């Protein structure tokens, strides 16, 4: 599973900063820089492309699959055929339809949990940093406890208490356990901001704490928030599928993890129904890769030192320099 790879606070896309000078044109050029960065960075391109595909499939499943993913039929665990591209499962439902339809639930899970977790972490992290004192200590303790407790066993126990859990319960359970790492990161970022001049200026102006937090601090943390969102979405995809795989959270929940559950229950790999588990698993992997690549690419965009030094580019640059030197020599000689 993913270990958060960002190298610390501040990684990510370059900020437009907290300054309010000519916000209009500045934001537009930032957007252009952003899209250009995505186009040139190969990881970002792949990640965004994959993500676009998945978003498309989740929005318009009807375009791609026409059979019901849950209907009983007499053709049980059939091999792939023209009618059923990936075969059928143990109740005769079309697996291909499950994969296509399941995309939506997985995306909903990923985005909702990503957003909720990040939002929750933001509230806790910034509040802890800003309020300080006893509040800081208490919030810190809770955060740290959740950090060290192994999340997956906790998830298993909590999820097992809801025997008829579906996607919504999964979302809740994942959100309430996954925020601690992000909260830690945001808190340290917010803390380093506390003494910055523009914040002191706001306080001197007499602005209330809430105002300072929302209007001044949070916009400067956009890159970290974005990276956290992506990381948490990735966590949701992997942890959510994991839970579904062991049979939790599968009520009325057509999803890749659930499909894998049934594949496992019916020992798909021993009965030759390889595609039953290869395809959904591959989808999980690809979606995870999309999130991870985008996140890693933002890391590189924000921190040029990490960018891959392409040998070809270096050679081109060196050739350009020799050409220039020869040209200037020629000019001076004449």
């Amino acid at each position, binding site marked *: *599973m*993913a*270990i*958060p*790879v960002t*190298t*610390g606070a501040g990684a990510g896309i370059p900020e437009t900063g907290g300054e309010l000078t000519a916000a209009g044109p500045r934001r537009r050029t930032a957007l252009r820089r952003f899209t250009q960065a995505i186009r040139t960075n190969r*990881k970002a391109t792949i990640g965004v492309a994959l993500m676009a595909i998945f978003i498309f499939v989740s929005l318009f499943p009807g375009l791609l699959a026409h059979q019901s993913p849950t209907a009983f039929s007499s053709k049980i665990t059939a091999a792939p055929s023209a009618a059923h591209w990936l075969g059928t499962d143990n109740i005769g439902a079309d697996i291909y339809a499950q994969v296509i339809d399941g995309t939506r639930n997985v995306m909903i899970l990923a985005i909702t949990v990503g957003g909720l977790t990040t939002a929750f972490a933001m509230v806790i992290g910034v509040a802890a940093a800003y309020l300080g004192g006893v509040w800081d200590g208490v919030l810190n*303790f809770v955060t*740290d*406890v959740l*950090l*060290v*407790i*192994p*999340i*997956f*066993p*906790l998830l*298993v*126990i*909590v999820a*097992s*208490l809801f*025997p008829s859990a579906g996607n919504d319960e999964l979302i809740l359970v994942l959100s309430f356990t996954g925020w601690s*790492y992000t909260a830690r990161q945001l808190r340290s970022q917010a803390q380093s901001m506390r003494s910055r001049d523009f914040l002191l200026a706001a306080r001197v102006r007499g602005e209330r704490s809430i105002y300072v937090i929302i209007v001044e601090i949070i916009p400067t943390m956009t890159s970290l928030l974005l990276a956290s969102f992506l990381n948490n979405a*990735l966590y949701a995809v*992997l*942890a959510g*599928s*994991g839970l579904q*795989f*062991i*049979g*939790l959270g599968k009520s009325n929940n057509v999803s890749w993890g659930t499909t*894998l559950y049934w594949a*496992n229950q019916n020992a798909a*790999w*021993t009965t030759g129904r*390889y595609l039953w*588990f*290869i395809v959904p*698993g*591959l989808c*999980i*992997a690809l979606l*995870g*890769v999309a*999130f*991870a*690549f985008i996140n*890693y690419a933002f*890391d590189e965009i924000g921190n040029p*030192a*990490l960018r*891959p*030094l*392409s*040998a070809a580019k*270096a050679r081109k640059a060196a050739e350009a320099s020799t050409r220039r030197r020869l040209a200037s020599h020629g000019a001076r000689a004449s």
Partner: protein
Amino acid sequence: MRLILRRAGFFLLTLWACLSLNFFLPRLMPGSPADRIISHLHGAVDQSTVRAIELSLGINNSQGIWSQYFTYLGHTATGNLGLSYSQGEPVSKVIAGALPWTLGLVGITTILAFILGTTIGAVAAWRRGSRFDSVMPPLFVFTTAIPFFWVGMVLILIFSVELGWLPGSGNVGQLTIPSFSASYIGDVLDHAILPSLTLLVTGIGGWVLTMRNNMVTTLTEDYVRMARAKGLSSVRVMTDYGARNAILPNLTGFAMSLGFVVSGAILVEYVFNYQGVGYYLLNAVGYDDYPLMQGLFLIITMAVLIAILLSDVATAILDPRTRTAG
């Protein structure tokens, strides 16, 4: 030193938090947890059985909830973790049987992943701009995003079903009798190869990436330039000046990542029917065997906390700045 003691104190508090979670969570749900267990036992059970089950869960309706709580805490402290009805044995016995298998598999694989991963990451950073460095990071970003259990299934498919080289299930053959003989050990290793390969493939990526990123930053530091200026060999610069500093954030990251390692291990054991702690945990879910689930949760948490404590000690040893800060 003081730092370590503080951490240990924090961990005891965490354990207490776990225990409290264990105690209160099932009670927050509608219906008594005992009901759920009873439903597995198909059919009418008499009052004394019900009471026995409730007692094993720490439910004693003749006491108030707080005295139940303290009795529960007391029992745990003395090692009485209740009865696992799905295994028919005391929970502590189940744990004692499963723990060595998990420690062996997960412990060794994690250490291996850490060593291999940080080495690859360090070399990749040292050889920036080479083919090695442009291939490795994307490759490992890819592997960190793949679900553990799927990799396990794929490996079973390839090596067990198709090629028949390695067993795809169990931690030891069905009919093998435990002994210290070579054949037994060979059998154990045979069964451990695929699970550990799974854990290794998915776990190594994180180490590679964080180490590489740290090294790249470290290598731009002045003290690395100084080391070159002194005429030290490249190997020495890379290890003594580069890696030794770059690895420090990794050690703290190790603590964070243990949560992921644990979840991966649990799923891998499940996929491979490898009878360690994770396998029993997931099995217990199917039976609503709360005592076993809670006991395993506790053990897993304790193991993680000990590992974190060890990595803190390692950091204190390797980084003299933390010692004086204590």
